[in-house]
């Protein structure tokens, strides 16, 4: 019962933040539509900004519904202090997320600068090893075979260009 209440509480707080983001996005789209050229000789109904304007308006309505609902359910009672932030940063899930995303971003940065097969071997080896997917030598074998097989099949056999 307690678990359910905690989950609902978290979900209401998340809804509160999400609804603010959704309302901000819809207002931004509405503004962009308003400043778009109108091509009035086609008729106002044919302007490029008309369909996004309509759907941004719908998004604004739905975002407002979620916002009001989260306020009724007391989702606005957020506690953002130093303790909460340090607890958040220390959690295992956040650390793992930062690590996996960091590795992906480094891979993305080097893509096109380093040969695809070499970069992929390095990425696969490091990720499998750091997340304890296999021992170092199994990680090495998996990394080399996967990267080389992908490169051979796609670039050499199917003539698909790789980054």
């Amino acid at each position, binding site marked *: 019962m307690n678990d359910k209440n905690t989950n609902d509480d978290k979900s209401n707080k998340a809804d509160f933040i999400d609804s603010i983001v959704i309302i901000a996005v819809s207002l931004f789209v509405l503004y962009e539509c308003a400043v778009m050229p109108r091509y009035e000789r086609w008729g106002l109904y044919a302007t490029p900004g008309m369909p*996004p304007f309509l759907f941004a308006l719908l998004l604004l309505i739905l975002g407002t519904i979620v916002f009001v609902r989260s306020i009724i359910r007391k989702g606005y009672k957020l506690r953002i202090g130093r303790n909460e932030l340090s607890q958040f940063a220390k959690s295992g899930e956040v650390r793992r997320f930062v690590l996996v995303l960091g590795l992906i971003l480094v891979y993305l940065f080097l893509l096109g600068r380093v040969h695809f097969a070499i970069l992929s071997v390095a*990425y696969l080896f490091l*990720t499998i090893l750091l997340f304890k997917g296999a021992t170092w030598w199994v990680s090495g074998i998996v990394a080399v075979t996967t990267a080389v097989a*992908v490169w051979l099949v796609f670039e050499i056999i199917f003539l698909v260009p790789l980054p």
Partner: protein
Amino acid sequence: MGIVYLFQNIVRLFSPINLITVFLACQLGILFGMLPGLTATMGIALLTTITFKWSTGNAIMTLLAIYVGAIYGGSRSAILLNIPGTPAAAATCLDGFPLAQSGRGAEAIGLATTSSFFGSFIGLIALSLFTPILGSFALDFKSFEMFWLAVFGVAICGNLTAPRDPIKGWISGILGILLAFCGMEAIQGHPRFTFGVLDLYSGFSLIPVMVGTYGMAEILLNLSSGQKKKVITEIGRVVPQLNRLLKHWFTIIRSGIIGIFIGLVPGVGESIAAYVSYDFSKRASKHPDEYGKGSEEGLIAAETANNACTGGALIPVLSLAIPGSAPAAVLLAALWLHNVRPGPLIMIESPNYIYEFSAMFFYASIAMLVLGLLIVKPLLKILQLKNALLMPIIFIFCIVGTYAINGRLFDITIMVIFGVIGFIMRKHDYPVAPLVLALILGPMVDENLRRGLILSNGDFLPFLKSPISIVLVIAIFFTLFGRTKPVRIALRFVFKPVTLLVSAVKRRTKK
């Protein structure tokens, strides 16, 4: 008479060379469908170049087998990894993955395979018998009807994927439509929401967004959660029992018919067919609460419809030279390359071709069934691999699939960005399927709404005039508000005389 011609062509095409070609091409198609990012469209496009110098019959048979195999193959990764290999398999994830998680992966693949075969078979019948008749029905869909159809697709998908809180599904769908508006629009050629980024002028490609929201998000979720998988000790029976399939005979037929009709409408495609059929099945089911938690009926509905849609999508290809889906468009181009001229004159110029084409489709469906049921257990080993070993490998396939479409590094960046967006959406209970579907349907909404308004000089009334539009508007209304209390009370009131009549008849027959 059509059946006789079909049978004659099936017998005529029976040869070891043709069988080997079909089986190899179908297996290749299944692999294309399975790997995230590699789609049926891409498979047909790649093989069109390889088969360019082959004889017309062999080349078309190969491409058709790839099409059928790839649409089916998408269900493999959807069931085993919760990553739809092709957009057509997005609805399969809803029940296929929960079934695999509960240790019934082999059974789920067996059910998906047999229902895909039944779907293809229903599509085959429609393709061979109704091509000339049904082709003309698709022509009745003009701008007004196409607009409502696209809106219906997004509404239904939002409802289905967020049954507890449909608002979140609709928000996801509207965000997808807004994303589809990015880039150069088709009527005045104005670049919308591009912010000076040249790569955005062509808009967001579907593949990077789909691979990002499904594939990348799944990788981020699995690796960051650090949870270990449940070890599946029993693999179980792959070939489904006949009585189990017979139990769902009505779902199979209904989903097949839905798939054909949606395939007939140009530009809609297999993904929406699967969602619409899933919704119909859920509404008619005695156990709607099981949907999304591993319902066999839901899986059968989605898989039958997307494969029946392949047959349906080929009907306008042959009879009108208008493709019903993206892979069907590439197949149409391949037919032209091989000097086959589909269109309204095909029944006059080469009346036998429709039956020859249908016979090829028949062999492709048989190959899909046999290969689908034979090569299941080795694939289930994927489920037993550690996430930390499997996910980085999938990431490499996501990169290759995303880059191979346009050869742009920008697409990979988009894939990663949408991976993070998909991760946040899943964490906050926003379904990603409506976003992906809306990205497909967004241009359809935009162009048909504005074109329709230009044609009617700004008058909205023609959008509500035709019978098809009225049916679609009613369907949208019930999708959005059908479960609200006032509508349910109103419906009960309207149908009260009917229910009273039915109960009176029942009482009379009992006596």
